[in-house]
């Protein structure tokens, strides 16, 4: 196994759950579309491995590729909009109890109702990223990120409240 492949495997093991979860939220909970998008992210990671020079942190690097791949996917994603949100299944919840399944599904549904950019921003916050990190990933000012996130949180709450 060469060094590139070894590095890729390490990244995969460490970051794939985060990538898949982001893609799952972006694809409104559709696991098949999310897996396809995750594969695209992995291909972009593979293609970028040699360019990574450590100017930003390792995690920031993976987030940037994930966010960019999702945003580039915007044009293909339009077709996927027709998928009925109620039929969405979330494979990871197979082993969970019913309450957990319901909670997860409603969260993914709610995230799916946000605009593409807002989906990515809120998922990074859910994943525990700081405003400064998000600002570094997106290339927009930290104060702008903070205000946007505040607005998205409100919208997400409204969507979740309306569903109850």
């Amino acid at each position: 196994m060469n060094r590139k492949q070894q590095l890729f495997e390490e990244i995969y093991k460490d970051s794939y759950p985060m990538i898949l979860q982001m893609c799952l939220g972006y694809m409104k909970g559709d696991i098949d579309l999310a897996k396809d998008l995750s594969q695209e992210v992995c291909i972009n990671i593979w293609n970028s491995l040699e360019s990574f020079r450590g100017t930003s942190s390792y995690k920031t690097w993976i987030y940037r590729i994930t966010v960019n791949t999702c945003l580039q996917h915007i044009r293909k994603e339009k077709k996927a909009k027709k998928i009925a949100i109620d039929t969405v299944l979330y494979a990871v919840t197979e082993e969970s109890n019913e309450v957990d399944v319901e909670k997860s599904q409603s969260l993914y549904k709610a995230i799916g109702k946000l605009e593409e950019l807002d989906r990515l921003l809120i998922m990074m916050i859910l994943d525990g990223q700081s405003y400064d990190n998000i600002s570094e990933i997106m290339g927009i000012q930290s104060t702008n990120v903070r205000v946007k996130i505040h607005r998205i949180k409100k919208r997400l709450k409204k969507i979740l409240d309306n569903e109850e």
Partner: protein
Amino acid sequence: MKNEFEALQHQWQKDKSKMESDPKENDMEQVLSTFQKNKTWSTNFQYGNIIILSIVLVGISAFFYFVAPVEELLSRIGVGLMIGGLFVRIIIECISVSKTKKINMLDQALQTTEDTIAFYKFRRKIHGPITILIIALYTIGFYMISPEFSLYFETWQMILIDGSYVIGAIILILVIRKNVKKEIKILSDIVDLKKKMLEEIV
């Protein structure tokens, strides 16, 4: 609201930890084999247009060299225009692929979005006047060969050849038009995305 959001964060982290322990996602051999297949498909898809156009170029060149070598100057200029037009189109596709590769996924999302906008502006330019010019040159070239061809073919055969070219050209123009509309829509979506990124909320 803070507590509610913390509960959502907790739910999110819980789901992620389930993904981490999913054996299907941790079978490295399976993962790498699927990944390799997808990677090859993705690269082939990028070069698909260039490969198809190159096959057509080789086919047409071989036809005029081995099957129907034209002798008159007018016809030779016609063949030159047809082959030259295709060649220019292939070069443009190569530039297009190289521009796609310049969209760096490691950049900040805003920078990548700006590069994508620049790429689609380039596509709009080549889809417009350049593609029309290439089709026009190809068509002129085709009809420049017709007088010499008419020496070897019956009138009805010539009508069939010329007529089928017109039908082919109409289909091609409609396909190009559809693609142009699609790409202009993509461009406007990405421009909107950039606006949303930079939007300041008061």
